[in-house]
């Protein structure tokens, strides 16, 4: 069974801000990490591999330095990796991102299962997984917290919704987006790290996956970001003063005035 895990390198949340003068995102000096949900996706894939045997490939679309993220997951036991990197991919919205990932997955070929994270912590859209599955014309399940094979070519998943939980059965090939509950990521092992260091990671550009400039990156995107800005800062903070009894009374009145329900 071939499994693909889609991982994204994202800026560490602590350091992201808007330059007050240029009104653009400051990316300089911001450390990159692997999107936390994608480490859960890797873990979910490796657990299936441990249980049933599988070949796990990690794919990322990003700048050349995204190779770091791929080496990291190779060190955790992923079998091989592909870096989708080309200037033409830059500025992609979720549709153009999904288009590029779909082309890469088609090129890998014969993939039974695709894992994505619930969402990326930078773009925060949670759209790439469902759009990717739709482009590949395969079924998908989002917000999955437990999963296992159910017979040779089906998957049983437990998903968490706003209302509770649901148990679904999907035929493979299928795509799954995962929550933290699928399992905490294993740490890289010495053996895998050695292999990861030496592994050669192919870099695919748009021609390698059979795409044209107008279908990828900014020019293949339907949405355009026209403005980024800092959220308005809270200017209404009050700090309660006095003894505990006085603070209790003040908080009670504060919540009444704010018309908070439940009082």
């Amino acid at each position, binding site marked *: 069974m071939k499994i693909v895990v889609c991982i994204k390198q994202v800026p560490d949340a602590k350091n992201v801000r808007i330059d007050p003068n240029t009104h653009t995102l400051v990316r300089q000096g911001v450390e990159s990490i692997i999107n936390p949900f994608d480490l859960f996706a890797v873990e979910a894939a490796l657990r299936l591999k441990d249980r049933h045997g599988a070949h796990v490939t990690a794919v990322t679309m990003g700048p050349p330095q995204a190779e770091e993220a791929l080496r990291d997951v190779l060190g955790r036991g992923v079998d091989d990796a592909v870096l989708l990197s080309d200037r033409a991919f830059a500025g992609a919205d979720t549709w153009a991102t999904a288009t590029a990932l779909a082309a890469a997955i088609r090129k890998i070929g014969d993939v039974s299962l695709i894992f994505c994270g619930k969402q990326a912590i930078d773009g925060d859209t949670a759209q790439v997984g*469902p759009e990717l599955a739709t482009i590949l014309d395969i079924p998908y399940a989002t917000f999955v917290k437990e999963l296992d094979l159910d017979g040779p070519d089906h998957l049983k998943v437990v998903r968490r919704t706003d209302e509770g939980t649901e148990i679904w059965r999907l035929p493979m090939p299928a795509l799954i987006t995962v929550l933290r509950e699928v399992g905490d990521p294993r740490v890289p092992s010495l053996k895998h790290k050695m292999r990861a260091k030496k592994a050669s990671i192919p870099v695919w550009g748009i021609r390698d996956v059979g795409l044209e400039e107008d279908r990828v990156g900014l020019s293949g995107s*339907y949405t355009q970001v026209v403005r980024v800005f800092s959220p308005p800062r809270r200017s209404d903070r009050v700090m309660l003063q006095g003894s505990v009894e006085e603070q209790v009374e003040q908080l009670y009145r504060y919540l009444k005035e704010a018309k908070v329900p439940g009082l």
Partner: protein
Amino acid sequence: VGTGPKDDLSAYRGIWVFAEWRQGAIHRVSFELLSAARKLADKKGVPCAAVLLGSDLDGVAPSLLEYGADTVYVIDHPNLAAFTDEAYADSLVALVREKKPEILLAGATTMGRSFIPRVAALLQTGLTADCTDLDISEDGLLLQTRPAFGGNVMATIICPNSRPQMATVRPRVMRPEKDARNGRIEKVDLPEEVFRSRVEVLEVIPEEDTTARLSEAEVIISGGRGLQKAENFRLVEELAQLMKGAVGASRSAVEEGWAPPSHQVGQTGQTVAPTLYMAVGISGAIQHIVGMQGSKVIVAVNKDPEAPIFDVASCGVVADLFEFIPAFIQRLKKEG
């Protein structure tokens, strides 16, 4: 420029809202969106419609008319009784292809965020996620504003060259307002194949415990490592119960086993935006803050005046929680 349908954009007219019907009721976010859509439609001078999907929908549609819909399209089919991405998306897409609305909005609930991306991909158009503000630009485009980077950055997004312009919108941001116009209800017939799904729904288990339904709660009381041990976490639960709210937790509290993972708020847990978020014994690490900073009123109770949680609080209480919370519970009981 995209690769979507090159048909005439001006053929698309009107603003639609997907009405989410679950467990026998219409989700509140659908009324919120309908009120917002009504205003946008008036600004553009176009009609406003709701699309209701489900099974056995007799008597459900009229409530949508009260919130400003000119038309309520009803897609009623047994296969829509349980939610599946394919049947929901494919039937909605069939109707969009036929009627051509210029804007399509849905709640950013787990349902909306799951199947609306499929709708956008099938229609080959753009989709903006989890918006908190919508407006119409001078040249008539939908201006979609949303938080990204866990709420540290806001972005305004447009979809200029494909239709419909699509957005999911965060619950509890817009206000539902009644505004009945003489609207009508139209039952829609669609070909059988749009109701098919490759996914089989084996079981739907509603969460009975209301303190666990974070995304719908107006009040969330969250506990962190400051509670020190499992028994003490009862304090948070008691306060939540008293205020008819839900119970949240920091990752540390989840790791200690005081609350199940489904209660975790933050970067690797849930993103919430209730009317009141109360953080008890939570330091306010960035990974926690990105999950709750969109809340309307934020109360922080912490004994350390330097705790970063106070940077996002609207009301800060520097106190020992073991003194403050029991006293506050007593105060609430006195009133009730």
